[in-house]
């Protein structure tokens, strides 16, 4: 079946998004999925906002060719999005389940308040990555960044896991205000950093065997997704950052005596 620039074959649809407004594009994506499509291929995407937002369904995959607009995969609950280019700001905001794979760099504010699923970024990411992330029992959101990040990495982080690999970087891979106000979850680094420069509310440890066995399944998947050597990725010492208190600001407005 062919309608306009869209080609539908069985459970797959290819959509030419060139010069298409985001409202129209997202309508077509939603209608396709409602009609039973499992694989959506988006071609010539450039700047369309809100792709994949609020979608459900573990068996849905959206492949994006081009640079999608802001707020990709927001509130997403199950599907996978593969982006073969860079992404802009605010991807995976409050995402609950599913996976976003980015073959390039990401803008600012990745996975804000994220509460489940995975976001894998091959390149660098901007400011405010994983801020306000949270987890609960089995629900563990995971963000892995291949390159470096800007300031406010993991600010106010309440749960979940972030991994910063710092691949291909000679300079230090984190900015200022690292883990400020962090009170839950864990951040893993493949590079040792001068931690005295950063938050006083967190502790800096070497990752132990338990940490590594948890991380391994995610790192192997990351290596496979980006065609990297899994041995290189999991070898060497990882460093772990955890909050030193579950309530770092308990006494911000009250006397320390309480």
């Amino acid at each position: 079946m062919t309608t306009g620039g869209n080609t539908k074959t069985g459970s797959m649809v290819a959509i030419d998004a060139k010069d298409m407004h985001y409202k129209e594009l997202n309508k077509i994506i939603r209608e396709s999925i409602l009609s039973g499509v499992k694989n959506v291929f988006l071609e010539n995407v450039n700047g369309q906002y809100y792709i994949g937002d609020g979608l459900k369904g573990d068996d849905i995959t959206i492949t994006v060719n081009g640079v999608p607009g802001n707020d990709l995969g927001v509130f997403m609950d199950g599907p996978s999005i593969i982006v073969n280019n860079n992404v802009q700001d605010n991807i995976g905001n409050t995402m609950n389940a599913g996976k976003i794979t980015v073959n390039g760099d990401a803008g600012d504010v990745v996975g804000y308040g994220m509460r489940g699923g995975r976001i894998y970024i091959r390149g660098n990411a901007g400011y405010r990555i994983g801020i306000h992330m949270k987890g609960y029992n089995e629900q563990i959101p995971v963000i892995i960044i291949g390159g470096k990040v800007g300031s406010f990495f993991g600010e106010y982080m309440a749960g979940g896991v972030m991994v910063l690999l710092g691949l291909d970087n000679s300079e230090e891979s984190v900015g200022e205000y690292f883990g400020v106000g962090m009170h839950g979850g864990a951040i893993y680094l493949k590079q040792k950093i001068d931690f005295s420069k950063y938050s006083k509310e967190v502790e800096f440890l070497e990752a132990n065997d338990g940490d590594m066995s948890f991380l391994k399944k995610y790192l192997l998947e990351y290596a496979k997704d980006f065609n990297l050597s899994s041995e290189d990725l999991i070898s060497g010492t990882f460093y772990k950052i955890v909050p030193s208190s579950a309530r770092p600001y308990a006494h911000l407005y009250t006397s320390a005596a309480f």
Partner: protein
Amino acid sequence: MLRLKNNFSIEHDIAGCGLCGIINVKKIRTNGEDIKKAIALEHDRGNGLGGGFAVYGCYPEYSELYAFHVMYDDLAAKEATEKYFKNNFIIEKQESIPIFKTSKINDHPILHRYFMKPKSDREDRLFSELKDDDFVVKSVMLINSDYDGAYVFSSGKNMGAFKGVGYPEDIADFYMLDNVEGYMWTAHNRFPTNTPGWWGGAHPFTLLDWSIVHNGEISSYGINKRYLEMFKYNLALKTDTEVIAYILDLLIRKHKLPVELAMNVLAAPFYQTIDKMEPEQKELYTALRQIYGSALLNGPFAIIFGYPDGMVALNDRIKLRPLVAGTKGDFTYIASEESSIREICPFPDFVWSPKAGEPIIIKTVKTTIDSENISQKQRLIIS
């Protein structure tokens, strides 16, 4: 009927605003089609209450003259303002700014331009010895605050601002920018938050050759305004962005600060950063903060600053607004969204984002771009 000087209702809305800039470092001129396409991609960042463009290199035949773009409510305002011009300037040429009436921009002021230079025996010479640039600044301030229904929105040489109420792509059609050529373009799509959407309030804001497009809020507007008033700048345009244009005029033209340092006044390093600097740098940045504390911009912002020798992209000190850069050959592009760059340059050689508070400065002609070196602050060598 449209009134420029009016009591506008003040609307509060969620912030957006879109920015774009294009510069050719070899000063090769291109028409306004690319910048229109780039800013049109950011259509949804604005709400139709303001769009505008600044272009450099557009009046080569009058490059020695000040090009005044003026908007008038009515012919009485025009007559009164032109009386001032005739008394004080030699007007080489004047004409209506060419416009194409579109259904999208159906209500506009009278738009006129003048190519002129201050008279050597002008009225004020009896009392003072102002240089031409100073006299032009004084004239712009005087007209904008005291001449009812008249606003000068461009006053530089071989550059011009084209702006109004509407979406930027419609403003581009209105001014027929496909017929205008320049080596540097900046553009703005407005989503007014704290101040009215009116013709004079659209970006860019310009004074002499300086132009500013801005996304954000200048929370320090009150302090900046009072500071500028001490140097006889009048803030008449009801929009926070105006202060940036005048601060840069003060710092760069009057106080002779290099552009790099002026940017470090707007987005001054935090004292905790200054504490970690080498002694000489520490002394400099401490002095700048002490002297120019009232010129510091507080609040979230992303700006593109245009001046004849280049273009600057700058974020606030904790990067609360988006800004992306891309290069391809002699062209450098700046935008609020990467897709905006890719709309006109699908395969840039290099795409990156400025760091918080650290300017990306792209200079024309002699200086080559060093895109590898993103952190410009480290490059500052103070002589």
